[in-house]
């Protein structure tokens, strides 16, 4: 892993007298490799290495008895700083407060909608879910089944009702039922699909959600930048939920997304079961990315 590589590198260099700028550059190359292998975007890595270079060349590393560890500490700290605020509460004001889940196909939106419902109900909120995916076979059935499992009400779309109408009508349904929070599950779509991205914008304008959460798979590679940028430009997302962190993906997409959108990662999915939702810990994510 990176820690071992840096230690070996500095051990080899130590035999040649005091550390130089060139030595540190070599060490930063190892850091760059580690970040690229972790799926952090090429350009984000470049900027990141530039930003840590100054600290890396500082006395605390050059004069240290364990420069490898010291450099790693500097890099880790900078990653944690970039990945953000740590605990950030969801905006649940309003009646109902609508939380819109968006993202690419298969990223985990429907499952996350149910997890979020369970999470919020545990915090004392009355919650409902809205199946706004009319395209995928059995998508509405999927959310309905999850709702039954949790005993959480799910809006029932009319035959042939379109996603914008579903999103609007469900607001009244929620008010009638006295629900405090409404979770909108939308269909997976490509960020380059203009009509479908426009559909999301229409839903947002009609519903005025308190949160627009981009649901992203932790194993997403370099494309994370394009995805996040497009969704953010079109919808001004308010936060990100990273899913499938129970796997062995390093999750560099987290840094890429944060770098290009400056939006916080609010929650993470750590399993298929409905209790597998956790708060995002930037320091844990930093360690995971560095490998």
């Amino acid at each position, binding site marked *: 892993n990176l820690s071992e590589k840096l230690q070996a590198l500095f051990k080899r260099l130590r035999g040649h007298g005091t550390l130089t700028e060139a030595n540190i550059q070599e060490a930063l190359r190892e850091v760059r*490799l580690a970040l*690229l*292998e*972790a*799926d952090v*975007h*090429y350009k984000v890595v470049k900027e990141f290495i530039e930003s840590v270079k100054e600290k890396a060349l500082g006395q605390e590393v050059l004069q240290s008895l364990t420069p490898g560890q010291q450099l790693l500490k500097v890099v880790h700290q900078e990653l944690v700083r970039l990945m953000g605020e740590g605990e950030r509460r969801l905006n649940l004001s309003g009646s109902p407060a609508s939380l819109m889940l968006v993202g*690419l*196909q*298969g*990223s*985990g939106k*429907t499952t996350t909608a149910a997890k979020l419902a369970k999470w919020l109900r545990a915090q004392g909120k009355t919650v409902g879910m809205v199946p706004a995916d009319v*395209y*995928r*076979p*059995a*998508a509405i*059935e*999927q959310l*309905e*089944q*999850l709702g039954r*499992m949790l005993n959480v009400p799910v809006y029932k779309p009319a035959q042939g009702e379109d996603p914008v109408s579903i999103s609007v009508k469900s607001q009244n349904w929620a008010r009638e039922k006295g629900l405090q929070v409404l979770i909108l599950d939308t269909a997976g779509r*490509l*960020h*380059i699909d203009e009509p479908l991205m426009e559909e999301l914008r229409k839903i947002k304008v009609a519903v005025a959600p308190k949160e627009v959460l981009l649901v992203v*798979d932790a*194993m*997403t*590679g*370099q*494309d994370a930048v*394009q*995805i996040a940028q497009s969704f953010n430009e079109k919808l001004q997302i308010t936060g990100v939920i990273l899913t*499938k962190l*129970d*796997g*062995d*993906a*390093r999750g*560099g*997409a987290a840094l890429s997304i944060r770098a290009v959108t400056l939006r916080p990662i609010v929650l993470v999915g750590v399993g*298929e079961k409905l209790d597998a939702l956790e708060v995002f810990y930037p320091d844990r994510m930093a360690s995971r990315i560095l490998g």
Partner: protein
Amino acid sequence: LSGKARLDFQTIEELEELLITADMGVGTVQRLIQKVDSTLRGGSGQGPDLIRSRVKEAIVEILQPREAPLEVDRARPFVIMVIGVNGVGKTTTIAKMGWMWKREGKRVMFVAADTFRAAAIEQLVAWGDRLGIEVVRQQHGADPSAVVFDALQAAKARSLDVVIVDTAGRLHTKTNLMDELKKIQRVAGRVQEGAPHEVLLILDATTGQNALSQAKLFHQALGVTGMAMTKLDGTAKGGILVALAWELGIPIRFVGVGEQMEALQVFRAREFADVLLG
């Protein structure tokens, strides 16, 4: 001479950025550039176009041996077990393949062996209804091996042509879930000699370096005989396929390029390399 060298360096750096951002992986990219560099030595001009075309040729050279379309006529019923991590497009790809073979006049059966995820059975049944392909299923929560057992008995008895087994998405790092797949594989082999004839791993084009870990662990557990990559209609280029082709000898069967039934193409090395290099 120095001007030419500087141009090479810039070209190499640009190619590195292009290929890394295509998810080829920094290790594979460096290996590839070294390979091309050695073929360029002793050559005359080294302009950017020549370097680029050499890189493309090197990529085609790596991918071409993995071009091996799936032949389903060598057994009846030919049994395909579809596996992969969560959400990559297994169920949708099964629908696409079923539709393709049905149009060729083959008698196809789908097996709903994802008995775990909410509405997974209903999703495959909906596709079966739409395409006119029968789906063998049991109740939610049934043992997937039991569903496969029954389905294969029926398929054998009626001498169907192709049976496609849909399994639940699962992370390759979960040993108990990998054991479940091994059991499905064993049970299939007991009902019919040689089944499953194809163990097809589905990969998502938006996945980065983790695809390597996925392929290796699924292969270790079951012996993967074919791979397919979905969602190439997005902006992700699927460059990891080059790393996989180089490291594993597994055939690449199909690419998925959309959510409609027509959006399935047979993998072609040169076409893939063309899109990769843009």
